[in-house]
């Protein structure tokens, strides 16, 4: 069972390679898997530094999303007024396609790195915000009554009840946000790519496209998917480790 994904991938790649060779498909249309690997080794540092650049934007955007999302969720929990004020704007930001506002952000924010982080954060912060807000509100009424009966302060109720209850919600949101931060970073790089910030993987994909270096384009794509899978797996392990450590799993 555990080997099923790997076996399937192997069969799929084998079939792909065989078909490309048998039908004589030119590599500027669809390169075979072996050619893609070769393309990676033609310029490994170029691609890996691009990957690192994209991952740095992703990591910073995720960190900002966590701080921003948790802070806004706490504010929404603390005051109904803040909840009413923040919620519609958070949704508005969430449903606005980042592609349509990224050019504006890149023009407004002079610094390219900051602009990419802002774009990726806009895409990524919503799951952290909405999940944490839901978790902070999820403390069972009986337990809230128990804290009230024991004259708990708001701070005690937050620290000893609401935050632990919210933790699994937050971690689920974090995992979604991790993937979205990467998507946001790549989208922003695409928009900014021709605008002068030339280092991320998305820029490599664009550049390879212009130059018809399709195998390298595929190699960059594979790196992106691998990065996405790795982020998801890492955040998943982190979540189960933390839940075990805090006695919640």
């Amino acid at each position, binding site marked *: 069972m555990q080997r099923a994904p790997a076996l399937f991938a192997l069969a799929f790649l084998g079939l792909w390679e065989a078909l490309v060779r048998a039908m004589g498909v030119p590599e500027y249309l669809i390169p075979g898997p072996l050619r893609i690997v070769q393309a990676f080794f033609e310029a490994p540092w170029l691609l890996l530094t691009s990957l690192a650049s994209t991952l740095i934007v992703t990591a910073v955007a995720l960190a900002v999303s966590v701080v921003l999302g948790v802070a806004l969720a706490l504010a929404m929990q603390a005051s109904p007024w803040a909840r009413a004020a923040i919620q519609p704007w958070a949704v508005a930001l969430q449903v606005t396609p980042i592609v349509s506002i990224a050019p504006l952000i890149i023009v407004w924010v002079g610094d390219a790195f900051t602009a990419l982080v802002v774009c990726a954060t806009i895409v990524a912060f919503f799951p952290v915000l909405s999940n944490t807000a839901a978790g902070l509100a999820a403390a*069972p009424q*009986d*337990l809230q*009554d*128990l*804290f*009230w*009966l*024991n*004259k*708990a302060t708001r701070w*005690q109720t937050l620290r*000893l*009840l609401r935050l*632990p209850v919210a933790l699994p919600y937050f971690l689920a949101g974090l995992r979604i946000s991790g993937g979205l931060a990467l998507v946001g970073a790549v989208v922003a790089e695409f928009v900014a790519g021709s605008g002068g910030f030339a280092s991320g993987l998305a820029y490599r994909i664009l550049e390879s496209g212009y130059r018809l270096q399709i195998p390298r384009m595929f190699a960059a794509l594979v790196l992106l998917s691998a990065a996405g899978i790795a982020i998801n797996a890492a955040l998943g392990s982190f979540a189960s480790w933390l839940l075990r450590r*805090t*006695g*919640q799993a």
Partner: protein
Amino acid sequence: MLAIDGVSRRFANGVEALRDASLRLGQGDFVALLGPSGCGKSTLLRLIAGLDRPDSGRLVWNGGAPDIGFVFQDATLLPWATAAENVFLPLRLRGQGWADAAPQVGAALARVGLSGFEAARPRELSGGMRMRVSIARALVTRPKVLLMDEPFAALDEFTRHGLQADLLKLWAELRCTVVFVTHSIYEAAFLARRIVLMTPRPGRIACEIASPGNLARLDPAYAALVAEITTALSHEAEGRL
């Protein structure tokens, strides 16, 4: 120690949960609030606890509101905390440190028969043991008043009988006032010295029946008490048809 006078409570959805209820609680009483669902017994308990306020009428504590221990229908433990940490919680919320509170926590767990389970988490305990932790948590602050909202309703009969016997022992030991909400005639007859019958729509107090207490389940006096309660309840139901 508590005088409840003409207390009424109507919820926002228009349901009249409690109408004109009056009751006196004395030090060391064991009172059962008995009735079918919707008779306002839980509402009355929450009013006594201060978790809810009446629309009219008064609750007056003689000598100010005392420390209250509350046991909910579910054990409502913190699932991530150990049994000891759960029992420590009320003391912690009062600003006590663990070093200072540990003996009290240990004693409270011992009192409900859970010595040796200090480090167990709720999911490692049976339903009855979870309820014992919940009772230990309610008793750890040595409250003058113990309020219990159908605490044994979700347990199997064997466990329930064990906990009922233990509760009577604890009550004899601690001499606190207990108000026990239940919809079981047998449970009320076995536990309480005063059985307050309540009827629904609107929720109100119908009458009160006294019990000599300490009745064994096979005692004819126990059967007679159960019969008396049953008759009173059916009279109430007939009177309303």
